[in-house]
């Protein structure tokens, strides 16, 4: 087991290097520069922008820039943002709690809806409940988040005036009021993201469950005289959850990576909005750091999913 994890981690090193190289080259080849806003400002002579480019090393050859970046990264120096001239790690850490809170809650919401609904629908396939759940799931994942987001804003903020649609990262109230406000402002984004996730996950859980529920060992369990609840939860679900675990594990990096569209709509100061604004302003160090961390998380959670398989199903051995 320990050997397996170690080997997987070692394999991850070259793949992460490859990922970082590809990311860096794509970003370096992409047109534009962080100082385009200065171009039409008559107050700033063009030489100033050119001098800044030279100072930040944007005119160096790509391989040199990559090596600089890599050696700094290995020493734990993530560089500084060209746009805010602030260290990249501070910038990311500042944004992380909000993303974890909003996207994490959305994932939890998705799971708490998807698992019971999916399992129950699978135990009674083609019943009224199943039909309704399916229809809603189809509607749910056909509607993009930017559409439902705007719809929610129009309904709950503008027409009904119940919920704020501008997210505030630190609310001034204290104690109980603080909690209420935190929840109130997160309701809409969490619903938008959570329901979207829940829709596709419900379908997934349902089909995984259907595969298992018809197997002989489930019939055997029933024949032993076990109750329906026990059969479903103890026997069928445990096996049905294996593919679901993969899906959830692969979703986990997204919890850290944020949701670009939803964060933009609700002005949530998370990693997703940091990423998109950095991409738009060609702020290479920030884009590199966010995407690279994201890549590391994908690799890590894949490993965690594989380890979890062994625990869920002892027949899968890790070698």
């Amino acid at each position, binding site marked *: 087991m320990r050997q397996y994890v170690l080997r997987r981690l070692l394999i991850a090193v070259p793949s992460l290097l490859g990922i970082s190289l590809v990311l860096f080259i794509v970003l370096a080849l992409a047109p*534009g*520069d962080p100082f385009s806003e200065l171009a039409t*400002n008559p107050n700033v002579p063009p030489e100033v922008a050119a001098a800044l480019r030279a100072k930040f090393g944007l005119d160096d050859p790509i391989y040199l820039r990559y090596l600089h970046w890599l050696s700094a990264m290995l020493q734990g120096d993530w560089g500084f943002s060209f746009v805010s001239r602030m260290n990249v790690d501070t910038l990311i850490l500042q944004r992380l709690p909000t993303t974890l809170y909003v996207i994490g809650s959305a994932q939890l919401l998705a799971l708490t809806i998807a698992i019971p609904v999916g399992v129950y629908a699978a135990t009674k396939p083609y019943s009224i409940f199943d039909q309704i759940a399916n229809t809603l799931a189809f509607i749910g994942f056909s509607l993009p988040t930017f559409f439902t987001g705007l719809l929610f804003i129009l309904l709950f903020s503008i027409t009904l005036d119940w919920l704020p*649609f501008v997210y505030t990262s630190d609310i001034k109230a204290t104690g109980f009021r603080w909690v209420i406000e935190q929840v109130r402002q997160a309701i809409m984004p969490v619903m938008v993201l959570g329901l979207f996730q829940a829709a596709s996950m419900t379908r997934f859980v349902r089909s995984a469950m259907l595969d298992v529920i018809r197997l002989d060992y489930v019939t055997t369990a029933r024949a032993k005289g076990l109750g329906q609840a026990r059969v479903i939860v103890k026997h069928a679900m445990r096996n049905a959850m294996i593919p679901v675990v993969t899906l959830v594990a692969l979703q986990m990096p997204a919890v850290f990576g944020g949701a670009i569209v939803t964060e933009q709509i609700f002005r949530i*100061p998370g990693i997703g909005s940091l990423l998109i604004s950095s991409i*738009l302003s060609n702020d290479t160090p920030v884009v590199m750091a966010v995407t690279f961390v994201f890549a590391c998380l994908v690799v890590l959670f894949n490993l965690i999913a594989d380890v979890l398989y062994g625990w869920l199903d002892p027949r899968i051995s890790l070698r």
Partner: protein
Amino acid sequence: MLDTELRSMIDEVKDGRMDRRAFVQRMIAFGLTAPMATQILAIGGVAMAQSPAPYKPTKRGGGGPLKLLWWQGPTLLNPHFATGTKDQDGSRLFYEPLASWDSSGNLCPILVAEIPSIQNGGLAADGKSVTWKLKPGVKWHDGKPFTADDVVFNWEYARDPATSALTIGVYQDITVEKVDDLTVRVLFKNPTPFWADAFVAVVGCILPKHLFADYKGAKSREAPNNLKPVGTGPYKFVEFKPGDVVRGELNPDYHMPNRPYFDTIEIKGGGDAVSAARAVIQTGEYDYAWNMQVEDDVLLRLEKGGKGKTVYSTGGDIEFIALNFTDPNTEVDGERSSIKTKHPLLSDPAVRKALALLVDRDAMQKHIYGRAGRTTANFLNGPDQFVSKNTKWEFSIEKATQLLEEAGWKVGADGIREKDGKKLKLLYQTSTNGPRQKTQAIVKQACQKAGIDVELKSVVASVFFSSDVANPDTYSKFYADIEMFQIPMTQPDPAQHMRRFHSRFVATKENKWQGRNFPRWVNKEFDAAIDAAEAEVDPIKRAAFYIKANDIMWQDTVVIPVMHRLKVGAATNSLRPVLSGWTNDTDNIQDWYRET
């Protein structure tokens, strides 16, 4: 005639033989507006009448929170590093310049006791120096006194290339000396008629010497106070998250009486312009939103029965189509659009004039810009004393057709005009932006009717305005026949705005396309007018030179002005923001209040 009469009248006011009011009334009789009349007095050497904004609150604070919504939040809070207005706006809450601009382009004293003038001895008669008298008793937020040393330090800080300040252009060619603790003198190499650049408005925000002295030059990025401003402004710093939020609280020791009105201030960033307009006008969640680049139809709809309205301020920002005078399709010494070539079609003045006749500015105002635009024939649209009255524009497909016919451009078999085997086909580029693409479509349609084939191209803004030498799609490389964008006027003076078309600034491979004369237009008469204006200390003659320069551009059709654009903000009904088209939205933040 008007000139000599005006002069004698100004002298009368100077000597006290005529009072200001009478002068202004006489000017109004000539058809000038009152602000323009006071401007003429000011440029004629009569001290500007301080017309302080009618600020009503009678005590400091008590106004509750002021919530501002910027759809691009400030990313840094050092005014010398500000890359865009968003950063300048954020810094300006805490830092202050010596003076700011009011809505009609007059200077308002902030950290000085008075605005320099010839009368009070602040301005040298030869235009080579300005003396600023600082306000006594001003304190930094940490309690240290504000003195002339701070002002001098800012000059040293910004002009050091190693600091990488973006304000270096303002400070590198001047000398600043301390006269005494509360007096500084700015010295210019040449007579400088526009002296109010250094230490004025957003580029003039003053950093405290005692906190930044150790971080001048290469270490500038490491200064801890880059993220925690300590200024002299109406609000004290509380919190900053780049791109997300800037927060401040009332400064109890602020140096202006009864100010500020609000107890706390916040700028929230992110999102898009339309939803920002919604949050102010429709739901009132926020008090003010900046830069409402939203179609007028949408704004009008939101305003119906809403809690807020849009507010406009006029500056000199101009949206225009520039014509390429060189050939973008021929390569000379590895350079396209080289100054050594001539444009095969646009070198014919008839084609340029015809194009100007095909830009339907009324339709663009009606369908695209609405209340946020004014039609104009001029490239230079303000301040008033510099605006030419000699120009006009019209939209007429018939006249354009006639002009082209007369010049020998005949319609070919495919409906496109041609002459000597050259077809009238143009590539029209601009940045990707809703209103710009609509404008392109309107121009293309009119051109088609006149037998000109226009191919449209749009480039992402971050590429189009990039200074990346390797990229072929930048506006300064201009590998197209015509292109359109906006040039903002960041101060109420035309010097920088007009200088860019001087032939010595032609963009070439040699200067890495950093030259600002991107149409690559060369005109000796224009050069002479600009050179003369820049050396002219007499304000009236100087204004005449700029008007002449503008008219030469108009006659030669170097650019086709599309729209004189106004700045649009959104404010809740009770808020009284003090805005100016000549400066940033927060440049007079100390005067904002709420009507109760």
